[in-house]
């Protein structure tokens, strides 16, 4: 990995929403970088802030109730501070996004070909015929059979997997250098999910597109990611390479996530490990480490605000927010021989 200028450099990103009940700190001091052609997985559960982060990069969270802090530099342009016009120019061109639900993400009354042509023509002065040609080729590339005919179909005439492929084709229509995928396979069947992931891997090979993959499924991540950022309660609690996160996880929440995955390649455990309790409200998170109430390893230092920093000299770039000494972490995370997890206390609210 060359130390070239990163494609995307997010520094101390903060997103607050003003609501009737108070200020929701949806994203709280998030920093990460994405290199050209790299796949970064942002993993977390509902309420972790991962989707808000992704949408903020695209400028889709701008509203009168939202306040932003920090920066997100796409090469030289700060996406957070950019004007609406600057943002509009790069959206759909340099940086593109695909969303979770392909059923509702396409306009039902316009043909899909027209919707893709629209995106091309928003950024380039291209004739209708030429744009249409490009669209047919794009559809063929993502594996849509009979593309020349299907280009005039309406979204409801496609199945979920096909619609997601159309979304991918649309996002890639202007050859973006960064693709943000927000839970792109969650709504799809397992075999179709495998196909779409295959498609995305292909994308990376062919066009060297960097991908930010937002998901709650660590399994999907193991297939495709180079680096992982684990988010909890608005913060990144751990970040590292794929192998570092899976084989040397440092944060108890990461242990919990890894532990609660059903492994089909292993013997069935007596009880499915889970993480007790629920994520804290983003209106009033605990002081210091947000994971404290659910962490069985909590101790005195945890009330102090933990920085996201590298705590393992041999692994630069592997950062986390846990106060425990590294040796302690490596000991405590093994709840059974060869089994990483956060041992659960029993079913609670």
């Amino acid at each position, binding site marked *: 990995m060359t130390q070239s200028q990163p494609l995307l450099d997010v520094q101390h990103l903060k997103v607050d929403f003003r609501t009737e009940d108070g200020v929701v700190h949806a994203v709280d001091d998030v920093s990460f970088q994405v290199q050209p052609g790299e796949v970064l997985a942002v993993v977390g*559960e*509902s309420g972790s802030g991962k989707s808000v982060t992704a949408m903020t990069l695209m400028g889709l969270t701008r509203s009168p109730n939202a306040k932003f802090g920090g920066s997100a530099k796409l090469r030289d342009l700060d996406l957070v501070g950019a004007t609406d016009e600057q943002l509009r120019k790069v959206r759909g061109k340099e940086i593109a996004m695909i969303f979770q639900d392909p059923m509702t993400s396409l306009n039902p009354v316009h043909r899909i070909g027209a919707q893709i042509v629209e995106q091309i023509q928003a950024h380039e002065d291209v004739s209708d015929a030429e744009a249409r040609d490009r669209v047919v080729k794009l559809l063929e590339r993502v594996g*849509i*059979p*009979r593309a020349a005919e*299907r280009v005039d179909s309406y979204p409801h*005439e*496609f*199945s*979920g*997997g*096909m619609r997601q492929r159309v979304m991918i084709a649309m996002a890639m229509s202007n050859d973006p250098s960064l693709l943000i995928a927000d839970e792109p396979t969650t709504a799809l*069947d*397992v*075999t*179709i*999910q*495998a*196909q779409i*992931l*295959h498609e995305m891997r292909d994308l990376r090979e062919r066009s060297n597109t960097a991908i930010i993959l937002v998901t*709650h*499924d*660590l*399994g*999907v*991540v*193991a*297939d495709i990611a180079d680096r992982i950022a684990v988010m909890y309660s608005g913060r990144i609690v751990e970040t590292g390479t*794929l*192998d570092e996160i*899976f084989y040397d996880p440092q944060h108890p929440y990461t242990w*919990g*996530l*890894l532990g*609660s*995955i*059903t*492994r*089909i*390649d292993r013997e*069935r*455990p007596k*009880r*499915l*490990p*889970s*993480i*007790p309790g*629920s994520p804290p409200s983003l209106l009033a998170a605990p002081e210091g480490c947000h994971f404290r109430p659910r962490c069985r390893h909590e101790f005195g230092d945890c009330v102090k605000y933990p920085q996201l920093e590298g705590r393992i000299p041999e692994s630069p770039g592997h950062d986390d927010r846990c106060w425990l000494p590294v040796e302690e972490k490596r000991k405590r995370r093994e709840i059974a021989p060869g089994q990483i997890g956060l041992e*659960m206390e029993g*079913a*609670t*609210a």
Partner: protein
Amino acid sequence: MSVSISQAPEAATQEDGETLLDVQHVKQHFPIRSGILNRTTAHVHAVDDVTFRLKKGETLGLVGESGCGKTTLSRTIMRLIEPTDGTIAFDGNDITRTGRRQLRPLRRDLQMVFQDPFASLNPRKRIREILAAPLELHGVAKGDVEKRTEDLIERVGLSREHVNRYPHEFSGGQRQRIGIARALALEPKLIVLDEPVSALDVSIQAQIVNLLEDLQDDFGLTYLFVAHDLSVVRHVSDRIAVMYLGKIMELSPSEELYVKPIHPYTAALLSAIPVPDPKLNRQRERIVVGGEPPSPVNPPSGCVFHTRCPRARDLCKVEVPRLSAYPNGHVAACHYPLNVTEAEVAASTKSPLSPVNSGDTQPERVEDPNAPLRSGVAVDAPSA
């Protein structure tokens, strides 16, 4: 109650123990009307001849992707719709064609938990009303109702005062707990769970699955657990049935399914599940089954999976494979099965679960059935 592997041989035979649910050759064909005169031009073969039995205290996992018919089957079993053909017997009573009035008392014993925790609770009612409704409907005394609803809510892991709140004040996982409490209210015998954890985060899924297991032990419940993939269902099930395009492809004691999948579709499903272990993933040979499931309006001839199966041969296009019985109560509908020995294939018989229109041809062991399927797009991947 979870039946462990060592007890499998006894549990596997359908004759032992009390049969709570007996589904025989059930079909559900929905008519499609088109043309100017709105005539019935075709049928959606949502469920196409499914047979199985559920024993008391057992959990049967029903797995398949969209369009396989599992949801339609679960609704047919619940008698929310009437089957086009076949019979359903619950606790010894034939409920295939019974009317709504006669079905009423049965509803005590046959309950359902739904997939979407956000849509299945009435947003205008407090939890106490939602839980009290089934009790009041079935004549539980007023005084008892309050106590029972509070007991119920505690039993599913929430606190007593939660009964005064509205659904929107709870998270998805908590709402699903409430849905489970509602299903439990009348102490049913059988609970049909239609993808109860699909809409939840992974760690919450684990909490709910653990809760379901505890409740099964405490209340002596029988579960039909419908899911769309094989990872979640593994933990709760004693046996698992894999469905594709309205038919059962394979039915097996659950542990055995993961170690010894016989049907190529099951193998493909297992292979598609990403394993959270990068080193393993890099080595693992992954089968990417191409194309999409064909339309249930015009199912393929012979074996319905033949259009996407990398192992398909001429016979597969022509003859509907019987469900062949292998040791341990493991059945699979494939002419050229995987992971079976020569002896097993020779000894296999035609299971009574086989569809009526299936053939009698003995399966054949070909190539090296223990080698993983080679990846690739299947013959003539059908268009969407």
